[in-house]
């Protein structure tokens, strides 16, 4: 019984702040500040109308986030899938070194990357552009995606492609017709994770972005100023910003542990 109680408390602790924001997003600003807090109130969609179509609309920011995250994901997958396949199957000089190198780049503190990127992009006048932001997103999404894909490729039995190779299919054709269909699930999960990380990114977005490219994570600060906090609007904005990642997270639920530990699990084992 005690065990159940503890579990229930923890469950509430993790879910409650999120649910509370959801609840608040349907309150009027006046109801939010009522004391004691109102659990029964007249729900309103005014906050959503405001953050979607009002003067503090988040639509351009949601669009920016979507564009940046999608482009970064697409590019990442285009590069990561062949790279991961090479690491998993082919023999080439300095393979172990390359593998460890990719793992090490994943550990770089982002603040160490943002300064040189800022200076270079400034010189190229590429600050506040999609391409600049996408380029820096590759620094964290690529190593992650490569390692995750390597682990999926390694799960595919070698015999399958050997059979294809004996049938005189070239490496590329074997990859396209035999391996990729097998790795579909892994690729889907990797895509979800890369998108999720890109969507949630903040440090790069706030430094590289500006008035033209302002992602939704940066725009959340619109609702908070020294003078006042627009509670209900903030809640509605937060719900909009969270919705895609929560949906994706729940979709990839079963794979989330694997996705989160991939670097460490693999990295230590292979050397």
């Amino acid at each position: 019984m005690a065990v159940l109680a503890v579990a229930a408390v923890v469950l509430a602790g993790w879910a409650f702040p999120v649910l509370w924001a959801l609840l608040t997003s349907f309150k009027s600003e006046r109801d939010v500040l009522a004391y004691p807090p109102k659990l029964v109130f007249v729900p309103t969609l005014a906050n959503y109308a405001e953050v979607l179509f009002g003067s503090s609309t988040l639509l351009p920011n949601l669009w920016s986030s979507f564009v940046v995250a999608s482009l970064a994901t697409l590019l990442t997958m285009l590069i990561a899938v062949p790279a991961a396949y090479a690491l998993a199957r082919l023999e080439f000089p300095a393979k172990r070194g390359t593998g460890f190198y990719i793992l090490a780049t994943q550990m770089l503190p982002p603040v160490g990357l943002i300064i040189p990127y800022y200076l270079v992009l400034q010189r190229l006048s590429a600050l506040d552009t999609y391409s600049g932001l996408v380029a820096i997103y590759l620094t964290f999404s690529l190593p992650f995606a490569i390692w995750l894909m390597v682990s999926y490729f390694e799960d595919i039995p070698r015999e399958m492609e050997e059979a294809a190779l004996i049938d005189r299919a070239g490496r590329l054709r074997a990859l396209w017709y035999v391996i990729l269909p097998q790795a579909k699930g892994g690729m889907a999960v990797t895509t979800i994770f890369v998108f999720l990380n890109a969507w949630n990114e903040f440090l790069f977005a706030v430094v590289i972005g500006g008035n033209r490219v302002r992602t939704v994570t940066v725009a959340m600060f619109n609702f908070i100023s020294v003078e006042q906090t627009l509670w209900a609007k903030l809640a509605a904005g937060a719900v909009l910003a969270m919705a895609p990642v929560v949906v994706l997270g729940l979709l990839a639920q079963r794979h989330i542990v694997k996705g989160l530990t991939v670097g460490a699990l693999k990295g230590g084992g292979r050397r």
Partner: protein
Amino acid sequence: MILLATTTAPLVYLLWTSLNRIDLSMPWLSGFAGLDNFARMAGDPRFWSSLWLTLIYTGSTVVLQVAIGLGLALLVMQIPRGQGALRVAAILPIVLAPVVVGLFWRTFVLSPDFGLVDLATGAVGLGSHNWLGDPKLALVSVIAIHTWQWTPFAFLVMLASLASIPPDLVEAARIDRANAWRRFRHITLPLIRPAIVIVVIMRTMVALSAFAAIYAATGGGPGTATEILNLYAYRTSFSELNLGYGAALAVVLLAITLLTSLLMFRLRRGR
């Protein structure tokens, strides 16, 4: 490879920047400065304070996550049903953007009078506190925020690891009349040690470069009360526009991260 272009080249540039004096507010003073930036650190109390805070922040969040995550996982293993619900709840904090989490806590959870924590402490007669405005409480608060968001990660990894222990082993020990503590100490612990090590390594790396949640919750303040090295490097570079010194700070953080990861991987292999 592309990673070479996207990560290593900027790193070299970062090292070069750290050797220069680049102050965008005083551009006429820019130029090569040798090790001046590093020499300045030695006499900079703000640097030492941020280093110390980084240590406290990283150490305490990692210990808390592992302890709570493991404790919970052990508890949850004993409840026959409802594990699924907990797993889903655990996903929620993980997929949220840290910056949204920081804002969440700053407003809905920790703000004086209206926040959930204050409502709770008020209800039991502990009064109202300025959780993020008081320098001592602010540090505790940002540690709590990080722990809240990432303990589910530790929990999920430990749970997966515990679930993979063959029940016969524990059963056999029970028949041999080993008590609960000895069963844990001699059977469970050695079997889940790899999982614990992975969690410690990964969480340490992330905690060292934590940024968005603290930025959103306190911005490093009040004053410099929650300014870990990462935030100091950011503020120096992009608020005070002293990119040379900021880069030098980032180099120190980078060195700490690399040393820690090497040390941890060595420890891991030694076992």
